[in-house]
C-alpha cells in the first residue's frame, strides 16, 4: 500500500468564526505504483486533500499513511523531511523559482532531503523530459509547456514514492496537455512511483485507468452535521 487515508477530517475556520468542513474521508487508498485521477469540482477540497496527503496540512482527525508511515502523527520537522524524501509535487502553476535555471530548479527538488544532490540524475531527468539543451535556461526563457516539463523533472528528482499532481495541465495549451500528461504517467511508471492527480477536467481524468470522484468518498457535510 502506497497511500491510505482513514477517517480523515479537515475543516477551515471562516473569518466570521464559523467552521467550514472540507474533508471527511472514511477510507481512500492507492496501491504501490498505481496511478489514479481524482476528479472534483473547483472548491471541492482537491487541493486540501493533496496538502493533507503531502503533510503540508495535518488532518484534524484520522490517519494519513504514506509508504507505511502515518505522517499525520509526525512532528512538523520530520514531516518536512519525509516530504523532501518521499513525495513529489507537480503544481498547476509550475511553481519554478524564477532565479534558478531549469537544472537548478530540478536540483532544488533534491536539496532538502538527506541524500546528496545528484546532478547527473537531474540532468538525465531533464533529458527525459526533452529539455537537456535548455537546462541552463531560466523559467522566463522557457515556454509554458517547457516550464511544466521542468516541474515534472523536479517532482521526480528526489526519487519519490508518491507523486502528487495538482491540475498539471490546466495552464498548458491543448497541444502540450497530452504531452505533459503522458510524460507524468510514463516517467512515474518508469520509476515505480505512485501517482495521484487531481483535476476538475473529466476529459483529462479519462486517460487514467482509475478515475475516482472526490464526492464519492468525501462527505464534509456529514462532518458538518455531526459538529452541529
Amino acid at each position: 500500500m502506497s497511500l491510505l487515508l482513514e477517517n480523515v477530517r479537515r475543516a477551515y475556520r471562516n473569518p466570521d468564526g464559523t467552521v467550514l468542513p472540507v474533508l471527511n474521508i472514511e477510507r481512500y487508498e492507492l496501491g504501490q505504483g498505481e496511478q489514479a485521477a481524482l476528479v472534483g469540482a473547483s472548491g471541492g477540497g482537491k487541493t486540501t486533500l493533496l496538502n493533507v496527503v503531502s503533510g503540508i496540512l495535518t488532518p484534524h482527525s484520522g490517519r494519513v499513511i504514506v509508504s507505511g508511515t502515518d505522517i499525520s502523527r509526525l512532528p512538523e520537522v520530520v514531516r518536512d523531511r519525509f516530504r523532501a524524501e518521499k513525495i513529489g509535487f507537480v503544481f498547476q502553476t509550475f511553481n519554478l523559482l524564477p532565479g534558478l535555471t531549469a537544472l537548478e530548479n530540478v536540483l532544488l527538488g533534491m536539496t532538502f532531503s538527506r541524500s546528496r544532490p545528484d546532478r547527473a540524475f537531474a540532468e538525465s531527468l531533464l533529458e527525459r523530459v526533452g529539455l537537456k539543451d535548455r537546462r541552463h535556461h531560466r523559467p522566463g526563457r522557457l515556454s509554458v509547456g517547457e516550464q511544466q516539463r521542468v516541474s515534472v523533472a523536479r517532482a521526480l528528482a528526489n526519487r519519490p514514492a508518491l507523486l502528487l499532481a495538482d491540475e498539471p495541465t490546466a495552464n498548458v495549451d491543448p497541444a502540450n496537455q497530452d504531452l505533459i500528461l503522458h510524460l507524468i504517467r510514463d516517467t512515474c511508471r518508469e520509476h515505480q512511483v505512485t501517482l495521484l492527480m487531481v483535476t476538475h477536467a473529466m476529459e483529462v481524468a479519462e486517460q487514467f485507468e482509475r478515475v475516482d470522484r472526490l464526492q464519492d468518498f468525501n462527505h464534509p457535510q456529514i462532518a458538518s452535521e455531526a459538529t452541529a
Partner: protein
Amino acid sequence: MSLISIAWKSIRQRGLASALTALSVALGVMMMVVVLVISGAVDAAFNQRTIAYDLIVGHQRGGELALVLSAVYRVQPASENLPYLYYLQLREDRRVVSAVPLAFGDVTQEGHFPLVGTTDEYFRNDYTPGRKFRIRGKRMSHHFDAIIGAEVARRNNWDIGSQFTIVHGGADGTHVHDEKFTVVAVMERTGTPNDRTVFVNIEGFYAIAGHETPLNEVEQRLKNFYASDPERLKTALAQIAAAREQEAAEAAHDHHHHHAIPDAAKEVTAILIRTRPDALFDPINLSAELREGYQAMAVNPMKPIRQIMNQLVGSVKQGLMVLTAMIILVSGVSIFVSIYNSMSDRRREIGIMRALGARRTSVFGIILMESVVLCVGGGLLGWLAGHGLAVAAAPYVTARTGLLLDPWTVDTLEFVLFPVLLLLASAVGFLPAMTAYRTDVADALSG
C-alpha cells in the same frame, strides 16, 4: 544546491536592488576605512615627529602647546624668545647630549614656507629615532646658505643654486628683506614638517637686516630672564655695554660697515634638547630646574601632542567615525527594507521550497544569509575599496600634506567591523527571516 547558493541566486535575481543596498554598505565601510587610514597616518606622524628630542625649551610666556606647534609643526609663531646665551648655557649642561637652537619668524616670499635658523647639529641628529636626514648637496657654510625641504623644492621648483628672498614676520608681512639666500642642499622627503621648511644658517638669520633687537630692549629682557642669576646677568650686560660703545663709536665716525652681533644680543625661539639615553630622570629634573631658575620652560613633546590628538584630531576622527557608523546603520536599514519589501513577492517561492520539503529553519536561514551576504559582502567590497582608495591617494596626500599614508595598515577597529556587520545583518535580516519562517505553505501556494 546549498542554502547559501539559493540565497545568492535570490540576491542575483533582484540584481539592481541588491547591488544598490550592498553598495550603500560598501560606501559606508569605505569611508570608515579611509578615515581610519588617514587618522592612523596623522597619529603616526604626530607621534613620530616628537620623539627624536626629549625636551623642547621655550620662553615661559606662551603655553606648552604653542611652543610645540611652533617648534615642531611650525604652524604658529612663538610669543617670546630666549637669550642665545641660554642656549650656550644648556649646551654645556652635563645632562645634555645635544642642544639645537631654532630661530624663526620669517617666511619665503615664494610659497610662504617658514624659515628656520639653526645649526648643522640639527641635520646630524635623527629627525625620528633611527631615521637620519638624507640631504643632497653640501652643508651650510655661509651666512645666507639654505637647506630646503622636499616639499619646498617641489612646490617652488627650487634646486641647489636657486636663490630666494624672504618676507618679514609671517605670510601677511609686506616687508621683503634685501638679503638673497642660496639653496645649497635639498632634503629627501621625511613625511614631517621639515619637508615644508627652509633651514638657514642661524648666523645668517641674525645677519638679516632688521632682525637685531634694539640694545635697550635686549638689556631689559636679559634683566628679566636672568633675575635669579646675577652672575650670568653681569656677563651678559657687559657684552651689551661693549656693543653699545661700539655703536656709539661707529655713529661718531659715520661708519656703516657690518659688524658681528654679540651673543648676548642674539635670541632663539626654541631649543631642542636630547638628554643622555641611559638617564631616565634627566628630562624630568632638567625640566623642573628650568622652570624654577629662569623664565624658561621645557616641554616633553609627547604631552601636548597627545593633547592635540585628543582635542583636535581625536574629536574630528570621532565625529567622522560616528558619521560613517550612521551611514552603515542606514545601509543596514536599506537592506532590511529591500529584503522585507521583497518578502511579499517571495512568499510563493518560500511556499514552493517548503512544499519541496524545506524546513522552516531552512527558509529562515536562506533569508538571513541574504542579509549577511549583502551586508558582509558590501562591507568586504567597501573595505577593499577603502584601502584601494588609500593606495591610489597615498602619493597625492603625501605630496600635498606630507602625511605618509600606509594604505594597508589595518586598524583594530577594522577587526571589529566585520563582527559588527554580521550582527547588523542578523538584526536587519531577522524580521524578514521570521516572516519566511512563519509562512503558511498552503496559503502561499494558493495565493
